[in-house]
Protein backbone atom coordinates (compact mmCIF):
# COMPACT_ATOMS: atom_id res chain seq x y z
CA UNK A 1 0.00 0.00 0.00
CA UNK A 2 1.47 3.31 -1.12
CA UNK A 3 0.76 6.72 0.37
CA UNK A 4 0.35 8.15 -3.11
CA UNK A 5 0.06 7.12 -6.75
CA UNK A 6 0.96 9.81 -9.29
CA UNK A 7 -0.68 9.22 -12.67
CA UNK A 8 1.07 10.92 -15.59
CA UNK A 9 4.61 12.03 -16.42
CA UNK A 10 4.17 15.45 -17.97
CA UNK A 11 5.30 18.68 -16.26
CA UNK A 12 2.63 18.34 -13.54
CA UNK A 13 3.43 14.67 -12.79
CA UNK A 14 7.22 15.08 -12.87
CA UNK A 15 7.18 18.17 -10.64
CA UNK A 16 4.80 16.38 -8.28
CA UNK A 17 7.18 13.41 -8.12
CA UNK A 18 10.16 15.65 -7.34
CA UNK A 19 8.23 17.33 -4.51
CA UNK A 20 6.93 13.98 -3.24
CA UNK A 21 10.44 12.51 -3.23
CA UNK A 22 11.77 15.49 -1.29
CA UNK A 23 8.92 15.13 1.22
CA UNK A 24 9.78 11.41 1.55
CA UNK A 25 6.26 10.39 0.62
CA UNK A 26 6.01 6.67 -0.23
CA UNK A 27 4.73 6.89 -3.79
CA UNK A 28 4.83 5.33 -7.24
CA UNK A 29 4.56 7.15 -10.55
CA UNK A 30 2.61 5.40 -13.30
CA UNK A 31 2.80 6.86 -16.78
CA UNK A 32 2.85 6.13 -20.47
CA UNK A 33 5.94 8.32 -20.90
CA UNK A 34 7.99 11.13 -19.42
CA UNK A 35 7.17 14.52 -20.86
CA UNK A 36 3.60 14.12 -22.01
CA UNK A 37 2.50 16.84 -24.39
CA UNK A 38 5.74 18.78 -23.74
CA UNK A 39 7.62 16.16 -25.75
CA UNK A 40 5.47 17.04 -28.77
CA UNK A 41 6.16 20.78 -28.56
CA UNK A 42 8.62 21.96 -31.17
CA UNK A 43 9.98 25.07 -29.48
CA UNK A 44 9.43 26.33 -25.94
CA UNK A 45 10.24 29.98 -25.31
CA UNK A 46 8.31 30.68 -22.11
CA UNK A 47 9.54 28.21 -19.51
CA UNK A 48 11.32 30.17 -16.81
CA UNK A 49 15.08 29.81 -16.97
CA UNK A 50 15.16 28.91 -20.64
CA UNK A 51 14.94 31.62 -23.28
CA UNK A 52 14.67 28.88 -25.86
CA UNK A 53 14.57 25.11 -25.53
CA UNK A 54 13.00 22.40 -27.65
CA UNK A 55 10.26 20.26 -26.13
CA UNK A 56 12.49 17.18 -26.41
CA UNK A 57 15.36 18.90 -24.58
CA UNK A 58 13.11 20.19 -21.81
CA UNK A 59 11.76 16.66 -21.30
CA UNK A 60 15.31 15.39 -21.01
CA UNK A 61 15.91 17.98 -18.27
CA UNK A 62 12.72 16.83 -16.50
CA UNK A 63 13.86 13.23 -16.69
CA UNK A 64 17.36 13.99 -15.39
CA UNK A 65 15.90 15.94 -12.48
CA UNK A 66 13.39 13.19 -11.67
CA UNK A 67 16.00 10.44 -11.79
CA UNK A 68 18.19 12.27 -9.26
CA UNK A 69 15.84 10.66 -6.77
CA UNK A 70 15.28 6.93 -6.47
CA UNK A 71 11.70 7.19 -7.62
CA UNK A 72 9.53 4.11 -8.13
CA UNK A 73 8.54 4.60 -11.73
CA UNK A 74 6.37 2.53 -14.05
CA UNK A 75 6.76 3.76 -17.63
CA UNK A 76 4.90 2.49 -20.70
CA UNK A 77 1.82 1.79 -18.57
CA UNK A 78 -1.59 3.22 -19.33
CA UNK A 79 -3.92 3.64 -16.40
CA UNK A 80 -7.33 2.29 -17.31
CA UNK A 81 -9.32 2.87 -14.12
CA UNK A 82 -9.23 4.21 -10.57
CA UNK A 83 -11.45 2.41 -8.08
CA UNK A 84 -12.33 2.97 -4.43
CA UNK A 85 -11.20 0.37 -1.87
CA UNK A 86 -11.83 0.02 1.86
CA UNK A 87 -8.62 1.81 2.76
CA UNK A 88 -8.15 4.10 -0.22
CA UNK A 89 -7.93 3.63 -3.97
CA UNK A 90 -6.84 1.08 -6.54
CA UNK A 91 -5.14 2.33 -9.71
CA UNK A 92 -5.43 -0.27 -12.47
CA UNK A 93 -3.25 -0.46 -15.58
CA UNK A 94 -3.42 -3.10 -18.30
CA UNK A 95 -0.60 -4.97 -16.51
CA UNK A 96 -0.83 -4.24 -12.79
CA UNK A 97 -2.67 -2.61 -9.88
CA UNK A 98 -1.44 -0.21 -7.20
CA UNK A 99 -3.27 0.52 -3.94
CA UNK A 100 -2.77 3.85 -2.19
CA UNK A 101 -4.24 6.25 0.38
CA UNK A 102 -4.22 9.10 -2.12
CA UNK A 103 -4.02 9.59 -5.90
CA UNK A 104 -2.79 12.51 -7.98
CA UNK A 105 -4.28 12.53 -11.47
CA UNK A 106 -1.93 14.40 -13.81
CA UNK A 107 -2.86 12.50 -16.94
CA UNK A 108 -2.94 15.47 -19.29
CA UNK A 109 -4.72 15.63 -22.61
CA UNK A 110 -4.79 13.89 -25.99
CA UNK A 111 -5.53 15.28 -29.47
CA UNK A 112 -9.21 15.75 -30.24
CA UNK A 113 -10.53 13.63 -33.07
CA UNK A 114 -12.35 15.05 -36.07
CA UNK A 115 -14.80 12.11 -36.14
CA UNK A 116 -15.28 11.90 -39.89
CA UNK A 117 -15.34 8.82 -42.13
CA UNK A 118 -11.81 7.71 -43.03
CA UNK A 119 -10.07 9.34 -40.06
CA UNK A 120 -9.54 6.12 -38.11
CA UNK A 121 -8.87 3.94 -41.18
CA UNK A 122 -6.13 6.25 -42.50
CA UNK A 123 -4.43 7.03 -39.17
CA UNK A 124 -0.67 6.82 -39.88
CA UNK A 125 -1.59 6.26 -43.51
CA UNK A 126 -1.74 9.97 -44.24
CA UNK A 127 -3.78 11.11 -41.23
CA UNK A 128 -1.63 12.44 -38.38
CA UNK A 129 -1.96 14.51 -35.23
CA UNK A 130 1.67 15.60 -34.96
CA UNK A 131 3.26 17.89 -37.54
CA UNK A 132 6.49 17.95 -35.54
CA UNK A 133 6.83 14.18 -35.84
CA UNK A 134 5.36 13.32 -39.19
CA UNK A 135 5.75 16.55 -41.16
CA UNK A 136 9.02 15.53 -42.82
CA UNK A 137 7.37 12.42 -44.27
CA UNK A 138 5.29 14.69 -46.53
CA UNK A 139 8.16 16.46 -48.29
CA UNK A 140 7.01 18.02 -51.60
CA UNK A 141 3.48 16.67 -51.22
CA UNK A 142 0.10 18.39 -51.08
CA UNK A 143 -1.41 18.30 -47.58
CA UNK A 144 -4.27 19.74 -45.55
CA UNK A 145 -4.15 21.10 -42.01
CA UNK A 146 -7.50 20.96 -40.26
CA UNK A 147 -8.11 23.73 -37.71
CA UNK A 148 -7.75 27.48 -37.32
CA UNK A 149 -6.19 27.98 -33.88
CA UNK A 150 -2.60 28.24 -32.72
CA UNK A 151 -1.78 24.55 -33.06
CA UNK A 152 -3.15 24.46 -36.62
CA UNK A 153 -1.16 27.53 -37.59
CA UNK A 154 1.95 26.15 -35.90
CA UNK A 155 1.59 22.96 -37.97
CA UNK A 156 0.98 25.00 -41.15
CA UNK A 157 4.08 27.11 -40.63
CA UNK A 158 6.21 24.02 -39.98
CA UNK A 159 4.88 22.47 -43.19
CA UNK A 160 5.57 25.57 -45.28
CA UNK A 161 9.23 24.54 -45.33
CA UNK A 162 8.44 20.93 -46.24
CA UNK A 163 5.27 20.42 -48.28
CA UNK A 164 4.45 21.53 -51.83
CA UNK A 165 1.10 23.06 -50.92
CA UNK A 166 -0.98 23.37 -47.75
CA UNK A 167 -4.73 23.78 -47.58
CA UNK A 168 -5.66 25.25 -44.21
CA UNK A 169 -9.19 23.97 -43.59
CA UNK A 170 -10.88 26.15 -40.99
CA UNK A 171 -14.45 25.61 -39.84
CA UNK A 172 -14.88 29.19 -38.53
CA UNK A 173 -15.39 32.33 -40.69
CA UNK A 174 -11.89 33.53 -39.72
CA UNK A 175 -8.72 32.11 -38.23
CA UNK A 176 -8.58 32.30 -34.44
CA UNK A 177 -4.80 31.93 -33.99
CA UNK A 178 -2.41 34.72 -32.95
CA UNK A 179 -2.20 37.48 -35.56
CA UNK A 180 1.55 37.05 -36.14
CA UNK A 181 1.07 33.42 -37.17
CA UNK A 182 -1.97 34.17 -39.34
CA UNK A 183 -0.06 36.87 -41.20
CA UNK A 184 2.81 34.50 -41.90
CA UNK A 185 0.42 31.88 -43.29
CA UNK A 186 -1.50 34.44 -45.34
CA UNK A 187 1.69 35.76 -46.90
CA UNK A 188 2.96 32.32 -47.91
CA UNK A 189 2.27 31.36 -51.51
CA UNK A 190 2.12 27.72 -50.49
CA UNK A 191 -0.83 28.19 -48.13
CA UNK A 192 -4.45 28.39 -49.26
CA UNK A 193 -6.85 29.23 -46.44
CA UNK A 194 -10.35 27.83 -46.68
CA UNK A 195 -12.70 29.39 -44.11
CA UNK A 196 -16.17 28.03 -43.25
CA UNK A 197 -14.85 24.69 -44.46
CA UNK A 198 -16.07 21.39 -43.02
CA UNK A 199 -14.35 18.06 -43.68
CA UNK A 200 -16.91 15.48 -44.78
CA UNK A 201 -14.67 12.53 -45.57
CA UNK A 202 -11.05 11.41 -45.83
CA UNK A 203 -10.63 8.83 -48.59
CA UNK A 204 -8.02 6.70 -50.29
CA UNK A 205 -6.94 3.11 -50.85
CA UNK A 206 -3.94 2.00 -48.81
CA UNK A 207 -3.03 5.65 -48.09
CA UNK A 208 -4.88 8.96 -48.11
CA UNK A 209 -5.67 10.18 -51.61
CA UNK A 210 -7.93 13.12 -50.83
CA UNK A 211 -10.58 14.81 -48.73
CA UNK A 212 -14.13 15.93 -49.42
CA UNK A 213 -15.10 19.33 -48.09
CA UNK A 214 -18.09 21.58 -47.75
CA UNK A 215 -16.71 25.10 -48.18
CA UNK A 216 -19.44 27.59 -47.32
CA UNK A 217 -22.07 25.42 -48.99
CA UNK A 218 -19.93 24.44 -51.99
CA UNK A 219 -18.70 20.85 -52.36
CA UNK A 220 -14.97 20.46 -53.02
CA UNK A 221 -12.89 17.35 -53.57
CA UNK A 222 -9.19 17.91 -52.97
CA UNK A 223 -6.57 15.45 -54.08
CA UNK A 224 -3.79 15.27 -51.45
CA UNK A 225 -1.57 12.92 -49.46
CA UNK A 226 -1.52 14.17 -45.87
CA UNK A 227 -4.13 15.34 -43.37
CA UNK A 228 -2.87 17.03 -40.19
CA UNK A 229 -5.64 17.24 -37.61
CA UNK A 230 -5.05 20.11 -35.19
CA UNK A 231 -8.39 20.91 -33.61
CA UNK A 232 -7.43 21.04 -29.97
CA UNK A 233 -7.35 18.42 -27.27
CA UNK A 234 -9.49 16.51 -24.82
CA UNK A 235 -8.66 15.72 -21.15
CA UNK A 236 -7.62 12.19 -20.18
CA UNK A 237 -10.19 12.09 -17.41
CA UNK A 238 -12.17 8.97 -18.34
CA UNK A 239 -10.06 6.85 -15.96
CA UNK A 240 -12.20 8.01 -13.04
CA UNK A 241 -15.98 8.15 -12.72
CA UNK A 242 -16.47 9.35 -9.15
CA UNK A 243 -15.19 12.94 -9.26
CA UNK A 244 -16.95 16.05 -10.54
CA UNK A 245 -15.97 17.14 -14.06
CA UNK A 246 -17.03 20.19 -16.04
CA UNK A 247 -18.83 20.21 -19.40
CA UNK A 248 -15.50 19.70 -21.21
CA UNK A 249 -14.64 16.62 -19.16
CA UNK A 250 -11.99 18.48 -17.15
CA UNK A 251 -11.65 17.42 -13.52
CA UNK A 252 -12.86 20.19 -11.24
CA UNK A 253 -10.30 21.10 -8.55
CA UNK A 254 -10.17 23.70 -5.80
CA UNK A 255 -7.21 26.00 -5.13
CA UNK A 256 -5.41 23.17 -3.32
CA UNK A 257 -5.94 20.71 -6.21
CA UNK A 258 -8.55 18.73 -4.29
CA UNK A 259 -11.26 17.03 -6.35
CA UNK A 260 -14.76 16.27 -5.12
CA UNK A 261 -13.52 12.90 -3.78
CA UNK A 262 -11.52 13.03 -0.55
CA UNK A 263 -8.00 11.70 -1.20
CA UNK A 264 -8.13 12.22 -4.99
CA UNK A 265 -6.19 15.22 -6.24
CA UNK A 266 -5.61 16.43 -9.81
CA UNK A 267 -3.15 18.79 -11.48
CA UNK A 268 -2.20 20.15 -14.89
CA UNK A 269 -4.04 20.07 -18.19
CA UNK A 270 -6.52 17.38 -17.12
CA UNK A 271 -8.09 19.88 -14.68
CA UNK A 272 -10.36 22.89 -15.13
CA UNK A 273 -7.55 25.29 -14.17
CA UNK A 274 -7.33 27.91 -16.95
CA UNK A 275 -4.22 28.37 -19.13
CA UNK A 276 -2.78 25.12 -20.42
CA UNK A 277 0.90 25.98 -20.16
CA UNK A 278 3.95 23.88 -19.24
CA UNK A 279 4.99 26.28 -16.50
CA UNK A 280 1.46 26.41 -15.07
CA UNK A 281 1.16 22.60 -15.05
CA UNK A 282 4.52 22.29 -13.28
CA UNK A 283 3.42 24.75 -10.60
CA UNK A 284 0.12 22.93 -10.14
CA UNK A 285 1.98 19.64 -9.66
CA UNK A 286 4.07 21.19 -6.89
CA UNK A 287 1.04 22.74 -5.21
CA UNK A 288 -0.89 19.48 -5.37
CA UNK A 289 1.81 17.45 -3.63
CA UNK A 290 2.21 19.97 -0.82
CA UNK A 291 -1.55 19.66 -0.29
CA UNK A 292 -1.35 15.87 -0.45
CA UNK A 293 1.46 15.89 2.14
CA UNK A 294 -0.83 17.81 4.51
CA UNK A 295 -3.71 15.47 3.72
CA UNK A 296 -1.61 12.36 4.45
CA UNK A 297 -0.23 13.71 7.71
CA UNK A 298 -3.58 14.90 9.08
CA UNK A 299 -5.74 12.05 7.78
CA UNK A 300 -7.60 10.31 10.60
Amino acid at each position, binding site marked *: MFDLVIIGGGPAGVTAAIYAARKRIDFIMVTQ*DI*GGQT*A*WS*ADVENYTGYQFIT*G*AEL*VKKFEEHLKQFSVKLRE*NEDVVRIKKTTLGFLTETKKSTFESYSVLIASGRRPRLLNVPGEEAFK*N*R*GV*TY*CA*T*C*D*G*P*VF*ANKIVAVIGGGNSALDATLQLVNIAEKIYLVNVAPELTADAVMCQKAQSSQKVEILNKAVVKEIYGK*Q*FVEGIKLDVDGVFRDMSLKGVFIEIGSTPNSDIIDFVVKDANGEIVVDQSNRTSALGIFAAGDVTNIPEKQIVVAAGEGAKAVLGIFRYLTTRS
Partner: protein
Amino acid sequence: MSIVKVYSTPTCPYCIRLKEYLKQHNVVFENIDVSFDQKGLQEMIDASGQMGVPVVKIDSDIIIGFDQERIDEKLGL
Protein backbone atom coordinates in the same frame (compact mmCIF):
# COMPACT_ATOMS: atom_id res chain seq x y z
CA MET B 1 23.65 -10.63 -33.65
CA SER B 2 20.46 -9.12 -35.06
CA ILE B 3 20.56 -6.45 -37.74
CA VAL B 4 18.59 -3.47 -36.44
CA LYS B 5 17.37 -0.56 -38.56
CA VAL B 6 15.47 2.42 -37.15
CA TYR B 7 13.41 4.62 -39.49
CA SER B 8 12.89 7.96 -37.79
CA THR B 9 12.66 11.73 -38.04
CA PRO B 10 14.85 13.97 -35.86
CA THR B 11 11.87 15.65 -34.19
CA CYS B 12 9.53 12.85 -33.13
CA PRO B 13 9.60 12.18 -29.37
CA TYR B 14 9.09 8.43 -29.68
CA CYS B 15 11.97 8.23 -32.19
CA ILE B 16 14.23 9.97 -29.68
CA ARG B 17 13.12 7.69 -26.83
CA LEU B 18 13.50 4.57 -28.96
CA LYS B 19 17.04 5.46 -30.04
CA GLU B 20 18.03 6.33 -26.46
CA TYR B 21 16.61 3.02 -25.28
CA LEU B 22 18.61 1.05 -27.84
CA LYS B 23 21.79 2.97 -26.98
CA GLN B 24 21.25 2.32 -23.25
CA HIS B 25 21.13 -1.39 -24.02
CA ASN B 26 24.20 -1.21 -26.27
CA VAL B 27 22.22 -2.25 -29.32
CA VAL B 28 24.02 -1.37 -32.55
CA PHE B 29 21.55 0.02 -35.07
CA GLU B 30 21.43 1.87 -38.35
CA ASN B 31 19.38 5.07 -38.20
CA ILE B 32 17.55 6.07 -41.36
CA ASP B 33 16.39 9.67 -41.22
CA VAL B 34 13.32 9.57 -43.44
CA SER B 35 12.97 13.35 -43.36
CA PHE B 36 15.61 13.60 -46.07
CA ASP B 37 16.22 10.01 -47.19
CA GLN B 38 13.38 9.55 -49.70
CA LYS B 39 14.50 6.04 -50.64
CA GLY B 40 14.57 5.08 -46.96
CA LEU B 41 11.11 6.57 -46.49
CA GLN B 42 9.69 4.49 -49.34
CA GLU B 43 11.42 1.39 -47.94
CA MET B 44 9.74 2.06 -44.56
CA ILE B 45 6.30 2.58 -46.12
CA ASP B 46 6.60 -0.59 -48.22
CA ALA B 47 7.79 -2.68 -45.27
CA SER B 48 5.35 -1.41 -42.65
CA GLY B 49 2.34 -0.51 -44.81
CA GLN B 50 2.01 2.83 -43.03
CA MET B 51 3.69 6.23 -42.75
CA GLY B 52 4.09 6.82 -38.99
CA VAL B 53 7.53 6.97 -37.38
CA PRO B 54 9.38 5.34 -35.73
CA VAL B 55 9.58 1.93 -37.36
CA VAL B 56 12.14 -0.65 -36.24
CA LYS B 57 13.30 -3.50 -38.42
CA ILE B 58 14.92 -6.32 -36.47
CA ASP B 59 16.21 -8.87 -38.99
CA SER B 60 13.03 -9.44 -41.01
CA ASP B 61 10.55 -8.36 -38.32
CA ILE B 62 8.87 -4.96 -38.49
CA ILE B 63 7.80 -3.18 -35.32
CA ILE B 64 5.73 0.00 -35.65
CA GLY B 65 6.19 2.64 -32.93
CA PHE B 66 8.27 2.38 -29.75
CA ASP B 67 6.88 -0.98 -28.64
CA GLN B 68 9.30 -1.78 -25.84
CA GLU B 69 7.90 -5.22 -25.08
CA ARG B 70 8.24 -6.47 -28.64
CA ILE B 71 11.69 -4.94 -29.00
CA ASP B 72 12.79 -6.62 -25.75
CA GLU B 73 11.40 -9.92 -26.96
CA LYS B 74 13.10 -9.79 -30.37
CA LEU B 75 16.44 -8.63 -29.02
CA GLY B 76 16.36 -10.66 -25.80
CA LEU B 77 16.75 -7.56 -23.59
